[in-house]
């Protein structure tokens, strides 16, 4: 059954004319049978802190970047454009493309020279700004309840712009050093979510949802003077978001 739904979703995305399902009763909420969907979401994301890592900037120079454990809250905005089809068992399927962008996530910590906590002589900070374009699918339950529950899944490509790295000595004897450079990394991004929608009029809905996402890899560029080319990186940047959406169905 699940395969059939998935296949129907895919076919819905590919074909032009909708094939009317045999089980369509008169819909009490009055949703259109097949429609164009546009959804604008806004909300906040929480991203987990960075990861502590030890790097060799030259074969002799060893530094540990100890990440602060704080999570930060970022504004997040998304635009989804897709189509919605009626599926069997009063399930609505949406498939489309989503564009999203967030504010800068702030990551910070202290630096241990020689990877030794005795020499924590610098603090550092930098930012990661994330945008993505993903293919998103959503299934909504049209069961004559006051709200429509839904689940979603998305995957696609994200762009993580790691930037504005700076380090500050914490003792007089430590001399300022060149910074890691800005770098944008293209990464595989995916997300899953669930939430509820409320139909306001024939064409307009509002809703709220929770989404867990992995923004993928982000990495700063090597600093001047490095011979190894290593720099701060994160393989995954996990985020949780609460998003409110305004949806239009045509």
């Amino acid at each position: 059954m699940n395969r059939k739904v998935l296949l129907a979703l895919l076919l819905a995305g590919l074909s032009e004319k909708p094939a009317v399902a045999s089980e369509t009763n008169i819909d009490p909420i009055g949703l259109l049978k097949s429609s164009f969907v546009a959804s604008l979401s806004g909300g906040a994301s929480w991203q987990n802190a960075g990861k502590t890592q030890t790097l060799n900037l030259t074969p002799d120079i060893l530094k540990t970047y100890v990440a602060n454990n704080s999570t930060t809250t970022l504004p997040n905005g998304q635009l989804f454009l897709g189509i919605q089809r009626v599926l069997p068992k009063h399930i609505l399927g949406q498939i489309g493309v989503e564009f999203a962008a967030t504010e800068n996530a702030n990551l910070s910590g202290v630096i241990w020279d020689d990877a030794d906590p005795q020499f924590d002589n610098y603090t550092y900070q930098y930012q990661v700004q994330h945008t993505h374009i993903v293919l998103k699918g959503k299934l909504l339950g049209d069961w004559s309840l006051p709200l429509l529950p839904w689940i979603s899944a998305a995957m696609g490509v994200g762009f993580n712009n790691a930037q504005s790295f700076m380090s500050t000595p914490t003792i007089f004897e430590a001399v300022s050093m060149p910074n890691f450079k800005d770098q944008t990394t293209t990464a595989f991004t995916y997300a899953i979510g669930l939430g509820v929608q409320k139909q306001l009029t024939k064409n307009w809905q509002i809703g709220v949802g929770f989404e867990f996402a992995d923004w993928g890899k982000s990495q700063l560029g090597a600093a001047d003077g490095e011979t190894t080319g290593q720099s701060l990186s994160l393989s995954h940047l996990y985020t949780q978001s609460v998003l409110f959406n305004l949806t239009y169905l045509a």
Partner: protein
Amino acid sequence: MKIKLLIAQVLIILMSNLAYAGTPLWTFTPLTATTLSVPSNGTAMIQYQITNQSARPHSLMMKPITGISQITFGPGVCDTLFTLQGKGSSCTLSLQVIGKQLIHSVIDGPIVCDRNSPLQCYKPSASNILTIRAGVNEYAIGGIVSGLSGSVVLQNNGADNKTVTSSGAFTFSTPVMQGKTYAVTVLTQPAGQTCTVTNGAGTVTNNVTNVNVTCVSNAATLAISVSTLALSVNDTGLNPALTGNPRIFTIRNTGSVSATNVTYSLSPALPSGTIISPASCGTMAPSSTCILTITPGNIPSAAPGDINPIPITLNISGDNTNTLTPTFNILTYGSVYQGGYVYAVNDSTSNMGSISGTVVTLTDQASRFPSGIIWGSNGAGSASADVSLDVIPGIDEFSTTGFSSPTYANAQTAFNINYANTSTYPFPPSSSFLSCDGRTDGACNSANIATLYNMYVTNYGIGSSPYNLSPGQTNVSYYAAGLCTAVISGYSGWYLPAICEMGPNSGGSGCSGSTQSIINQLPDLIGDPNAGSPSTSCVYGANCLAGYYWSSTETSSFPQNIAWVQYFDSSGGSVQNSTTKAALAGVRCSRALVP
């Protein structure tokens, strides 16, 4: 492995919460004084014990300092690249200060880096930092900034920067030793300005206070209200019309920065009695204006009768602006302007522009009899036999704007009697004729004449009456008013003057005494038709007006056949008369000045 990492991370959190004070990877323990003065011909020795505080070995190098060289031989002395093996191992960093090579004092360092990489460097603590003051006198380098608006960053010897935010004296923070050179340059210009340095380089022998930085605003743009002005002389005694009203040039700064020191010069000089003010415009803020007022005296800018008068040019500019070169002419009767001699002046126009008035051409368009031209042509030529006798409405000496004379109806009736094919080629509609002040408005009269003769070739007198009209334009060089449609002296818009524009009342023309006319206002142009050479018999000496010349005013008693002529005669016999349109008379066109 993961558990170990977890424990390590917990410990990390705990330890960082204990506010563990950081320790330098390698420390500098001074073995000698680290603050001292060194004379310019002397040397000094400074030593630090460099001790590795880390368990890891480090290979280190000192960052070079000008004037200080590292001594690398001797027991326990650090080599250029020296390796300190584990915690506690050390060597002695021996530095020799060479006074002769010091450009300025040293107040930082020494900085020692891992294999000379900028990514891991340490220096002594604040109390042990290297502080070398040159033993000989050091002098301050400074000077004066002028004209600054905003802030400029000056640089001395390529390293010492000084930000100056207002005009006045300045001094660089780093002194330079006696005998060394200094070189002051502008590192960053202020927004919208350019600063130039003079006396910026030299050798220090004493405090330098004469570095001169002059800042001027980047170009401002000046615009002028009009490019040329014509003014009347102030000579109401000569004629009430010559009121000599002051007129203005408005200069405007259209740029985004102030224009400084906006002044002007005049070439040639003003005629005596003419005043221009203000004497200069000074500083003009963006969008501000400066109004130059010219108040004429009774002397024109060029002599009347001078055929190539030189206008007065105002050369206006500021220190940081483009140059404007408007011109102006102060005119009186007989001044040559816009292609002719001025004989009428209207000084009541707006003072933001020029006077208006009337000029007469410098030469004849047709000469007096036996040369000359007919008043109206049938299209075959310009001789008396080619005359076309037609009534042109609205242009006789009684016609006014309120009352057209001859009337359109009379003109049309005469036309229909003269010509046979008027059903195919009717008289031009009444809307195409104006009701003119026939005595004084030659431009209007000439327009009415052109209306008929531009529409038809009349063929008057060809074959038997009534004659057959042909459509099309009568050749303009065949009749008096047509000659004035040409471009003369580079100007167009000429017309055959009305009778009262040519001379005072005579023979019943009814000219008013206050009308400015060629005879009254240009006596020096009037010649003697009975002289041996009438054309050179006037005070101007050439192209004199002498004899009979056509006007554009028809004669009311017999408008079809007769029109007014002016007889110019300097020997006292200028009169106005009427004669047949077939007569050959001279033509001298007039034109209204374009203010």
